[in-house]
């Protein structure tokens, strides 16, 4: 099973890229979770998962550029209750004895101010982001 986490806050401009990427998208049997941030209880969803995809906006790089990276369990300890993808995978490993393969699919944002809607650069990148997400979720 594949779990797709679409991360971000649509009220903060390009931070809404994750939720926008999955909106209306057919990802077959994948389970899609739209959330502002990753929380410890999301580890429960990974108990039987083979793949976890984290689609999100990021800071850094030319606006609209897409980056796909493997993510492994671990990382610096979180200071609060929200987690990064590597933390969530580590939590799954500790709780269930295993963690799925993790992939982050991110698009560089141009504007994270309070606003509805995405910048032109991120809007233009959405079709490719959705296609790559579809390929990942459906597997090779």
């Amino acid at each position, binding site marked *: 099973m594949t779990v797709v986490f679409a*991360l*971000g*806050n649509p009220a*903060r401009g390009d*931070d809404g890229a994750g939720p926008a990427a999955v909106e209306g998208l057919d990802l077959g049997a994948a389970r899609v979770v739209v959330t*502002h*941030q990753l929380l*410890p*209880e999301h*580890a*429960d969803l990974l108990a039987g998962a083979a793949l976890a995809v984290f689609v*999100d*906006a*990021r*800071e*850094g790089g030319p606006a609209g550029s897409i980056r796909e990276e493997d993510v492994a369990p671990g990382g*610096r*300890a*979180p*200071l*609060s*209750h*929200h*987690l*990064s993808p590597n*933390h969530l995978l*580590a*939590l799954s490993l*500790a*709780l269930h004895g295993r963690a799925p393969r993790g992939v*982050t699919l*991110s698009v560089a*944002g141009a504007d*994270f*101010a309070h606003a509805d809607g995405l910048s032109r650069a991120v809007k233009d990148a959405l079709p490719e982001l959705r296609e790559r997400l579809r390929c990942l979720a459906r597997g090779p």
Partner: protein
Amino acid sequence: MAERIVIDPVTRIEGHAKITIHVGDDGSVRDARFHVVEFRGFEKLCEGRSFRELPAITSRICGICPVSHILASAKACDALLAVDVPDVVRDLRRVVNLGQLIQSHALSFFHLSSPDFLAGFDAPPERRNILALAESHADVARDGILLRKFGQEVIEKITGKRIHPSWAVPGGVAAPLATEARDQLLRAAPDALDRATRALARFKRDLAGLEEEARVFGNFPTLFMGMVDEHGTLDHYDGKLRFVDAAGEIVADQVDPARYQDYIAEAVEPWSYLKFPYFKLFGYPEGSYRVGPLARLNVATRCGTPLADAELAEFRQLGRGAVLSSFHYHYARLVEIVHAIEKIEQLLLDPAILSTDVLAVARRNRFEGIGACEAPRGTLFHHYQVKEGGIVTAVNLLIATGQNNLAMNRAVAQIARHFVDGKQLAEGMLNRVEAGIRAFDPCLSCSTHALGRMPLHVELRGPAGELWDEARR
């Protein structure tokens, strides 16, 4: 030479704050302060809106306790309408409020604080977080995660959303409870109760190794305030205010929350955006009072559910009169989780909970409305004034964390004096100062999220709105 030690940011709390510790020439701690450096401004931005919008707007104050804000707001709006809401509305709102209490308390106890109890306050920071907890005590971490999930499911099954539900409205709620949702929650409740009682039993055993912390983590006499019904039973949704003193004697009782300003006044200090409420009769700062789980267990005659009442009797053995140590907020949180699950089961087992008469329709009939409920961190008040047409002219929000502000500052100073040696700083000392604040579980704000750093854009504008300067990171 006198020194100032700054802990910034304070970690594992909801929001951003800093602590300063003032050290004298001889190296001893003179004073310590808890600074809240965020400014939200919700009271101001509500002005000019229709009062009917306020439940949805004010619930955005917080991502952890939005249900408390929407309920206090809906109750203030009920008062503006001058309606008596149907019984089922009261019960459904009560269930949702308890669901939120469970998820919020589970987050505070298991995710944020239990790493200190289980790894030790002197353990390195990388051992004091939820990930390390899952590695060393997977059963405890799992209980915490699943209890929080249960609380969130209560909210979601009834309101349709886990966070920021727009379900409570002026005069009632937007939708009745579906039979299937009720049955799902009833099926999940016994497992949640098992996990809660197991966590409580374990914490009581662990207390033996935490005696020093219990002795100096905000252990001093203050007043306590919470809501109880006409029999003195804990009532998180619709009670009257009761104040008790450090001896456990009732100072004021059955106070209608609408009269809160007769009993509570608010002071301000130039070094914090958080207000300093106090009990009027005793003045400032002598009128310091605490709210939240510890205060509720101190003011209530009983919880009103069997397991929680047995636990309350045992809890009371910790003090002569009221239980004074703020460290026992943790203990009280677990007792309240047990009570909340029991109470939710009781309410859901009543067939009347499925009634579809969930809205009293009316126009504005008053110009002033006050609503209050017990939020996870303490009593929450929403106070609105409106003019013709229902346009809001003034809002006052009295929030639990603010009401604990005087006590939190005093707790920080007490802990610093006991643990901090101004000439030598160790991680364990600083962690204990932070943990003293964490015991109150203060909630300061929530924010956005993106991979990497959180975006921040600050603009400095002149009187006419012209941009003087800006900074980004």
